[in-house]
């Protein structure tokens, strides 16, 4: 079931960032927001533990999983 906030409809976004130009992007967390703008503001405020050189968010609904832990290990 979808996440609930005071807003009338929200979705989850995955947050990706990297510390240096050398390293690849990694998943640093997630935020829940009613629109892209608020999700951007939240990602920036919530995951400020590093001076990231790059940060981006992706709606979770746009992520396509090929397999999950356990499915390819057997």
């Amino acid at each position, binding site marked *: 079931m*979808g996440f609930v906030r005071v807003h009338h409809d929200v979705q989850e976004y995955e947050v990706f960032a990297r510390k240096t130009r050398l390293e690849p992007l990694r998943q640093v967390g997630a935020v829940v927001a009613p629109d892209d703008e608020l999700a951007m503001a939240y990602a920036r405020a919530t995951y400020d533990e590093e001076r990231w050189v790059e940060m981006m968010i992706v709606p979770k*609904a746009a992520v396509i999983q090929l397999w*999950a832990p356990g499915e390819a290990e057997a």
Partner: protein
Amino acid sequence: MESSNSAAFEGLLKRGELIESVSEMTPDYLRELKHTLIVSGDTELISAPAYYLAARKAPSVNAFMTGIAIIQDELAHAHIAYHILEELGESQEALIFKRDPKAFRYPYAFDVPLESWTELVVANAMYDQAGFCLLGDIHEQCSYGPWKRGLVKVMAEENFHLRNGRNWSKRISQAGGAAKEELQRAVDWMFPLTVEWFGLPDNLKQHSAQLDYRLKGLTNDQLRPQWLSTVVPFMASIGIQVPAHQENSHYVLDYPFPSTFDAEAKRWDFNDPCTWDDVLSRWRARGPRNAEMVALFQESFSKFLPQRGREISLQQRIWSALAQIDDPEMPINLVDLGVVYGVALEGRTVRVRLTFTAMGCPASDMIIGDIRERLLAEPGVDEVAIDVVWDPPWSSSRMTVEGREALRAWGLSV
């Protein structure tokens, strides 16, 4: 089939591997994990109003900023725990904004008001040290992958809180005079409260499933000395007395543990030892600031809610209507099955984003018909538009905990 899932779970746990999703857990593990996350989330969350009310007494903008930065961290840490709970099927909104103040699970110490900048920095030096010991243990041991990864950020930031507490305590002690006396008074009541933070001695404690499940690694009697071994020497180094001393390699309390505490007067009576039952009933009754702090958090949420009244209630009515529609082939409703991807309102039209468990789902027309019929019966709905989507594809991980349990009870392995 249930037993093979449970054997796979035991295997992962034994090999020291991480559990990554609900489908890999047993119901008992899920329950213990949620409980541990709630205690952690509540503790971080409630530290925010406790610290904020003291940060208002900051002596300068710089000091205030440090206080706010610490509060921001604590809130972000609470967010990590609550968001994981949300992924596990709990409602973050209900946990934070709709719970009774007495239902929050955090250390009693936060219920005793921090009323000055001095008390705030002592809290940073002692309470955050306790949090550091407890979370450090979880971070090291934790068998649940998403939480273990989330704690990396937490540990780094808690370290900053400790440094702030220590730097300021030292500075205040060096100022001497009335400032140092105030610092000593704060340590006098806060030190024993933090010792209590680690809970009952091991011999009085029931068997801990948290240890079996590797949700933590150390017992109360192992964590408490860890805390003492950092706080006692530090306080000595800045000329502040604490009721504990070192004997050989370990630390000993100089007062009967537990003792009686007067929360209003912030005073311990070391001549009046009490039982752990007395302590537990003090904890359960919660302390002076419990209701006030939770109210601060919840007030604007409940004020804001009526503004969104129509949308929320219709939105919620639609979700609960969808939860009344069962899959034609299995005893599970569409919401628990995880095939409803979203509901949007456009005036009096409801748009439902829907998927099916398989592209060739023979029951798809029947399900669409059921949804249309049921939603048109809701007041305020004139039209129902159903968008069938295949991206992202459905998988069993989209089922709720309740749905999974319903199917297990029915005899299906999920």
